[in-house]
C-alpha cells in the first residue's frame, strides 16, 4: 500500500496511484462544519457524548479534523496553516461554547460574541467588543457573515487602505508554520497542504476586513464588484501591493517549510456564479491574471509545490485562463453550476489541471439525498474525473451543517471502495 504522500504526488502528476487520494480538512474550503464533525465523531464512536470539537476556522465554523477521524475515513491529506483567523484573533486559548445546533465546541479566547435583541450573534474584530462588530450569525444559524463597515463618503479611497490587513509575516508566524509542518511531516504520512493567508486577490470573504477594527477603503461587497469595472487602475494597484507582500511571505515560508508541503492553497476568491462567470474573462486577464502568474511562476521556479486555486461556481469560460496563470489544481469543481459537466471538464482540461473536489453535489445530493443517491453520484464522479489521475477526492466545498452523518460516511466509503486503480466501476451503483 502506497503512502498517502506518494498517492497524492502521483495524482498531482496526472498518474494513477494505487487508489484515489481523499481529502477532508486540508484546506478551509475542503472541511466540514463543526456540527457535522461532532455528529460524525459520535456516529463513529470516536468520542464520549458531549466531547467538544474545536472550531479551527470561526468564519465558516469549521470543525477540527483530528487524526483519528482522518484515519477512520482514510484521508490522505493534512492542513498546515497560520496562527490567525479571519477575525484577527489567534487560534489559541480555547474556551467552551455551544453552537445554535447544540454542538459542544471549543473556540479561541478571542471569539467574543454579543447577542442582539433578536437573538443574532455578533462577533468582534480581534476579540475587541469596544470596536464595531465585524461578523453576524443569525439566530439559529451556522456561521458568520461579514458586516460591511465601509465608511461613508468613500469616493476617493486610497490604495493603502485596502492593504492594511496584508502584512509581511513575523518571525513568530513563520516559526508557527515551520513547527506545524515539521510535526505533521514527521509524525504522519499525509500530504501537506500549505494554507497561505493573504494571497487571495479580491477574495470577497476578505474584502470587508473582518479582522480590522476600523477598516477603511473599499469594503462593501457591491462597491468592490463595481470597482472592478469603475476603478480598474485603483484595483490593479491594490493587487500589485498585495502581490509584493505575498511574494515576500512565500519566500519566508519556503525557507521554513522547504519541500515538505505538497500543495500551496493560494487563492479562494470566487470567479463563478451558479449560472456563469462572475466577471468577464477580459477582466480576469487584465486585473488578476498578471499577479496570479507572478505568484505561480515564483512557486514553480523556487519550489516543488503544486498550486491550488479555489473558485466556486460556473468557471468553464475561465479555466483556460486559470491554467495560463499557472494553477496546477482547481477546487471545488462545482458540477451543479452551469456548463460544469464533469465528463466535459475532464475531457477538455483534465490533462492540464488536477480536479480537487467535485466528489458529490453539495447543493442537493449530499444534504438531501439518500445514501444510495450519494453512492451513485460518487461513482459517477470517479468515472468522470478518476481516469489517468489528476483527481483528489473531496465534496464540493465544505460539508455543511445538517448533512446526515450517514451520507458523509457513504461518500468516503464509496470513494475508497471504488477509487482503487485500475478503476472498475462496472459493478458500482
Amino acid at each position, binding site marked *: 500500500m502506497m503512502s498517502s504522500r506518494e498517492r497524492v504526488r502521483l495524482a498531482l502528476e496526472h498518474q494513477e496511484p494505487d487508489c484515489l487520494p481523499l481529502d477532508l480538512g486540508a484546506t478551509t474550503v475542503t472541511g466540514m462544519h463543526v456540527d457535522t464533525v461532532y455528529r460524525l465523531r459520535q456516529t463513529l464512536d470516536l468520542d464520549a457524548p458531549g466531547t467538544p470539537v474545536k472550531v479551527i476556522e470561526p468564519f465558516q465554523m469549521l470543525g477540527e479534523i483530528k487524526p483519528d477521524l482522518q484515519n477512520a475515513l482514510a484521508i490522505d491529506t493534512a492542513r498546515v496553516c497560520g496562527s490567525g483567523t479571519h477575525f484577527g484573533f489567534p487560534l489559541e486559548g480555547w474556551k467552551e461554547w455551544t453552537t445554535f445546533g447544540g454542538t459542544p465546541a471549543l473556540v479561541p479566547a478571542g471569539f467574543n460574541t454579543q447577542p442582539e435583541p433578536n437573538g*443574532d450573534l455578533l462577533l468582534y474584530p480581534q476579540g475587541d467588543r469596544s470596536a464595531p462588530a465585524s461578523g453576524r450569525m443569525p439566530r439559529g*444559524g451556522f456561521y458568520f457573515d461579514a458586516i460591511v463597515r465601509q465608511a461613508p463618503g468613500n469616493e476617493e479611497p486610497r490604495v493603502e487602505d485596502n492593504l492594511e490587513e496584508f502584512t509581511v509575516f513575523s518571525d513568530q508566524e513563520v516559526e508557527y508554520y515551520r513547527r506545524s509542518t515539521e510535526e505533521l511531516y514527521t509524525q504522519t504520512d499525509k500530504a501537506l497542504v500549505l494554507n497561505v493567508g493573504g494571497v487571495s486577490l479580491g477574495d470577497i470573504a476578505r474584502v470587508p476586513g473582518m479582522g480590522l477594527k476600523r477598516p477603511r477603503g473599499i469594503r462593501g461587497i457591491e462597491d468592490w464588484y463595481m470597482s472592478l469595472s469603475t476603478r480598474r487602475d485603483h484595483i490593479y494597484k491594490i493587487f500589485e501591493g498585495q502581490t509584493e507582500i505575498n511574494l515576500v511571505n512565500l519566500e519566508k515560508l519556503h525557507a521554513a517549510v522547504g519541500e515538505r508541503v505538497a500543495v500551496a492553497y493560494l487563492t479562494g476568491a470566487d470567479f463563478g456564479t451558479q449560472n456563469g462567470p*462572475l466577471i468577464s474573462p477580459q*477582466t480576469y486577464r487584465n486585473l488578476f491574471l498578471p499577479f496570479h502568474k507572478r505568484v505561480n511562476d515564483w512557486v514553480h521556479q523556487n519550489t516543488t509545490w503544486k498550486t491550488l486555486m479555489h473558485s466556486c461556481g460556473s468557471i468553464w469560460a475561465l479555466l483556460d485562463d486559470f491554467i495560463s496563470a499557472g494553477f496546477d489544481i482547481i477546487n471545488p469543481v462545482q458540477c451543479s453550476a452551469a456548463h460544469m459537466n464533469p465528463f466535459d471538464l475532464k475531457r477538455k482540461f483534465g490533462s492540464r489541471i488536477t480536479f480537487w473536489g467535485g466528489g458529490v453535489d453539495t*447543493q442537493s445530493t449530499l444534504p438531501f439525498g439518500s445514501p444510495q443517491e450519494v453512492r451513485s453520484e460518487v461513482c459517477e464522479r470517479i468515472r468522470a474525473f478518476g481516469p489517468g489521475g489528476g483527481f483528489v477526492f473531496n465534496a464540493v466545498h465544505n460539508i*455543511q451543517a445538517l448533512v446526515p452523518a450517514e451520507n458523509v460516511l457513504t461518500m468516503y466509503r464509496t470513494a475508497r471502495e471504488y477509487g482503487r486503480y485500475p478503476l472498475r466501476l462496472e459493478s458500482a451503483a
Partner: protein
Amino acid sequence: MAQFEELKQAIIDGKAPVAKELTDKMLKEGVRPGEFFPKAIIPAMDEVGRRMRECEFFIPEVLIAARAARASSDILRPLLVGADAMVAAGIVVCGTVKGDLHDIGKNIVAMMLESAGFKIVDLGVDVTAEKIVDAVRQNNANLVAMSALLTTTMVNMKGVVEALTAAGLRDKVKIMVGGAPVTDAWAHSIGADGYGKDAPAAVELARQLVAV
C-alpha cells in the same frame, strides 16, 4: 425622442451621474415623469438583461447599470402621483429568507423588477414568514419573491408558502423563488409558482405570473 435614447444608453453604460443629470434636465424641460420608465428605464434594463443572458454583461456591469437606473428612478418615484401615477406592473414583496443574510442576487432582482415597472417592497434579509405575510397584506401584493443562498436556509421557503396558505392569502399571490441552490424542481416541490435562475429570468417570470 433623442433624450430618452441618451438616458437609456447612460443606464446601460452605468453612468449614474449622467442618468441623474439627464433626468433632472428632462423634467425641467417638461417631460412627464410617467414617460421615463416605458421609454428609457425599462428598455435599458431589458437590454442589460439581454446582455447578461448573452454573457456580455457580468455582475460588475449589472450592478453599475442598476445603480444608474436607480439614480434616475429615485428622482422620479416621488413624482409618480396623481396624473403621473404609474400603474405598477405588479406589487412584489421580496426578501432573503430567515437565517440567510445574502442579498446581492436579491438586490439585483429587485432593481431589475423595479426598473421593469414593478412596485417593490424589499424586506431585506433574514426575513420571517410572518413578516412576508404581513407585508403582502399591508401592501396588497400580488407577487412574493424569495431568495436563499444556503442549503440550510432554502428549506425556510416552504414555511413561507405554508404561512401564506394558512393566512388565506395563497390564492392572492404568485410565489417565485431563486438563489444558488434553488432549482425548478425544488420550487415546485414546495408549492411555489416559479423559479428564476437569474435576474432577467426573474423579470420574465414575474411578467408571466402577473399576466395569469
